[in-house]
C-alpha cells in the first residue's frame, strides 16, 4: 500500500492526479497540498469524512511552511512514502512571478521539496512532472526528441523555460540516488477537455492573441491531462527510476493548437520578435517570447516515448481532437480509445 503526497493539488493537473490515485486500490492515503482553498471537486473526497484524502494549504516555495509540514506530527502520522511533485501551472502560474531568494518560484519549490524528501527517511519515491520544453530544439518544423537529447542551456532562453530547465536538473541530479527513487516525467503541451492548455510557454494562460514567427508553424506534441495522471500512477506503481518522456499520439501545428484553444495566433517576422520581446520587458508586460524570439515559436518537436512504454508500461490512451459540444460549438475534447 502506498501513502502519497501530491503538490499543487488545487490546480487542474493536480486535481486529475488526485482523482486517478483516489481510484487506485493500492493507494492508502493521499495528502493533497495546495496554495488556495480546496477545490470544489474535492468535496466528494473530503465531505464524506474519508480518511484517505487530506487537504492542506502550504506555500511550497518558502522554506518555513515546507519545513513545518515535513516535521509536523500529522505528516509523521500519515507515514508518507511517495511524493508527487505537480508543478504550478494554472492561472496562478506566471513568468513574472516574484523570485524567491533569487530563484523562480518553481525552482525554489523543487529544490525545497527534493531537499526534504532526501532528509525524510520514510520517503522512498519522488515522482516529478517536468516539461519537455527543456530540450534544445534543433531547426525544423518537427524533430523527434528522446530522453537523451540535449537540454537547452542557452542563457537567453525565456524565464519560464529557464525555470523548467533548473527544476529538471535539480531532479536529474538525484536520479541515481540509492535510497530515494526519483522519476522525472517530461511532458509536452498538456491539453484538457474544454480547450485548456497547460505547460506551453506561449499558449498557457487565458485565451488571447499570441505571436508566432512568420514562415514557421512548429508542430506541438500534445498529451491529455488524463494521460499525465495515468503516467504518474504508472510511475508510482513501477519500481524504476529515471527520466521518461510522456506524450500522446497527436501532434499539431502551433497555429491549429492556438485555434483549438481559443487563441489568436499572429505571425510576426522573425527579426521583429526579439524587438517585441525587449519592448514588452521594458514596459513591464509579461513576455512569452524569450530573447531572440524563442526557438519554441519556430521549431517544433515530438517525443520518443518508447522508454516510458518499455519501463513504465505507459502508452497514451486518450485521443485529442475537436468535437461538437451540446451548444453546437466545436471544442477541444479528449476521448479514450
Amino acid at each position, binding site marked *: 500500500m502506498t501513502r502519497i503526497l501530491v503538490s499543487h493539488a488545487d490546480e487542474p493537473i493536480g486535481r486529475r492526479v488526485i482523482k486517478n490515485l483516489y481510484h487506485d486500490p493500492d493507494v492508502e492515503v493521499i495528502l493533497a497540498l495546495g496554495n488556495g482553498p480546496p477545490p470544489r471537486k474535492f468535496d466528494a473526497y473530503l465531505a464524506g469524512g474519508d480518511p484517505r484524502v487530506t487537504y492542506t494549504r502550504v506555500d511550497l516555495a518558502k522554506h518555513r511552511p515546507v519545513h513545518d509540514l515535513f516535521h509536523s506530527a500529522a505528516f509523521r502520522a500519515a507515514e508518507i512514502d511517495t511524493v508527487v511533485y505537480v508543478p504550478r501551472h494554472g492561472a496562478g502560474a506566471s513568468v513574472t512571478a516574484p523570485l524567491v531568494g533569487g530563484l523562480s518560484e518553481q525552482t525554489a519549490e523543487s529544490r525545497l521539496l527534493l531537499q526534504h524528501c532526501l532528509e525524510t527517511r520514510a520517503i522512498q519515491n519522488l515522482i516529478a512532472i517536468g516539461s519537455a520544453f527543456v530540450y534544445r530544439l534543433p531547426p525544423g518544423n*518537427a*524533430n523527434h526528441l528522446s530522453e537523451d537529447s540535449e537540454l537547452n542551456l542557452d542563457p537567453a532562453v525565456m524565464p519560464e523555460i529557464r525555470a523548467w530547465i533548473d527544476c529538471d536538473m535539480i531532479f536529474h541530479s538525484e536520479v541515481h540516488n540509492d535510497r530515494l527513487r526519483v522519476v522525472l516525467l517530461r511532458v509536452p503541451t498538456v491539453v484538457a477537455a474544454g480547450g485548456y492548455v497547460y505547460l506551453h510557454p506561449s499558449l498557457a494562460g487565458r485565451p488571447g492573441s499570441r505571436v508566432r514567427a512568420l514562415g514557421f508553424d512548429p508542430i506541438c506534441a500534445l498529451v491529455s491531462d488524463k494521460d499525465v495522471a495515468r503516467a504518474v500512477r504508472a510511475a508510482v506503481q513501477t519500481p524504476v527510476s529515471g527520466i521518461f518522456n510522456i506524450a500522446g499520439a497527436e501532434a499539431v501545428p502551433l497555429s491549429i493548437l492556438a485555434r483549438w484553444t481559443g487563441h489568436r495566433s499572429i505571425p510576426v517576422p522573425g527579426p521583429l520578435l526579439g524587438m517585441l520581446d525587449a519592448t514588452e520587458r521594458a514596459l513591464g508586460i509579461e513576455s512569452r517570447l524569450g530573447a531572440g524570439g524563442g526557438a519554441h515559436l519556430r521549431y517544433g518537436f515530438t517525443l520518443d516515448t518508447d522508454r516510458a512504454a518499455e519501463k513504465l508500461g505507459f502508452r497514451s490512451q486518450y485521443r485529442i481532437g475537436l468535437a461538437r459540444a451540446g451548444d453546437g460549438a466545436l471544442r477541444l475534447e479528449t476521448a479514450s480509445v
Partner: protein
Amino acid sequence: MSEIEAPQVVEEIASPLAAPGRALGHDPFDDLATSDPLSEQLDQLEARRGQKPEARLRARRSPERKAAAARPTLARSSARRTTARSEEERTKPDNLARLAQRRWATTPPLAEIELPPPKGWVDRLLNPDERRILAAFAHLVEGEAPYDRFGYSPEAMKTTFLIFHTLYRIYFRVRSEGHEHIPGEGPAVLAGNHGGLLPFDAAMAVIDGALHTDPPRLVRAVVDRWAGSLPWVNLFYARAGQVIGTRENFDKLLREGQLLLVFPEGIEGIRKTIAHRYRLQDFRVGFVEHALRARAPIVPVAFIGSDDQSPILFDIKPLARRLGIPVAPITPTFPWLGPLGILPYPVSYRIIYGEPLRYHERFGPEGADDSRLVRYLANQVRRAIQLLIDRNRP
C-alpha cells in the same frame, strides 16, 4: 557490352583506410580490406555485367565459387570477431519473437485503394493513378490526424506531387532504372550523390520512388539542419514528408520501417564546382551506423543530371561564411539573372538504383559500435555509388 574498367578515382576510393593505416604502422582493417567478400562481390558484379549469360552460369557453378561459399566467414581480425554474429544468436527465440512483432508503417497496394471522389481543384488536376498513390500515402498518417509526427501532410503533398510530377515528366524528363532494388517494405536507406543548387535530385527521387513501387513508398529525404531554419522552406519540407537530419529522426523513421534518402556528401555535394562534378566528396558516416542498428539495407543511387542543372563556376566561400549560407555560387546564370539564375536548366535526369548493400546481415547491429568499420562501410557505399555514376554517365 564490354567489361568496364574501374577508373582511377574508384581505385582511390576503394582503399580509404590505407593512408591512415600506413601512418600508424599497421592497420587492423588491412586484412578485412583485402579479403572483404563485399568488395569481391562488387568486383564480381562488375565483371559479370560484361559476361554473356552462359559464362555467368558457368562462373556460378565453378568449384572455386562453391569452395568460397563453404568457407567459414569468421575471420581472425578483432574487428571481424566483434561484428560477425553467430548463427545461434541470430536464431535466439527472443530475437525471433521481436522480429515477428515488427509492424512497419506500410501503405496498402495500389490495387486495394478505393479512390475517393475528387475534391478541390488539385484533385481534379491529378490523374487517377496519382490520386491512388497519394491515397496510399495518406495511410502513413495515424487515424484522422491531418499531420504525422514529422509534420507530413497528405493534403499538402497533393499540390507538391502535382507540381513535381509535372517537372519530372516534362522539364527533367526523368528516366530511371533498377527500381526493383528498392525494398518493398521495411526500413531502407537510399544513398545518393548530391548536386545542383536546389535539391531537385531529392524531389525527383521522391516522385520516382512513389511511381515505381507498389505498394507505393514515400521516400523521405533527410535534409540539412540549415534548411530547417529557413522560413517557409522548413514548412514545405516537413509537409512534403522530408525530415531534418538529426540522429533521433533517423533512428525513429528507420524503426518505423520507412524509406529514407540520404546524401552522405552533405552540403559539400552542392558546393562542387564544374571541375569536380560527379566526383563524390567525403562521406558522412552516420547513415551506415543507423542502417546497421535498424537492420536496414543501403541502396546506392546515382543521380545523373543533378550536377549539370546549375554548374558552379566559382564558390565564393568567404562571402558564404559572411552571409551564413552554405554556398555563394557563380554560375553561368547566377547572379546575372538575379534569383531566376538559381533555377535549374532543363537537363535530362537519370536515376539508377544499385543492388542493396545488406551490411546488417553480415555485421549486425553491433557493427554500428565499431567506428572504423562504419567508416569503411561508408566508403564502400561511396565506391558503389561512384561505380554507378561512372558506368552511366554519358
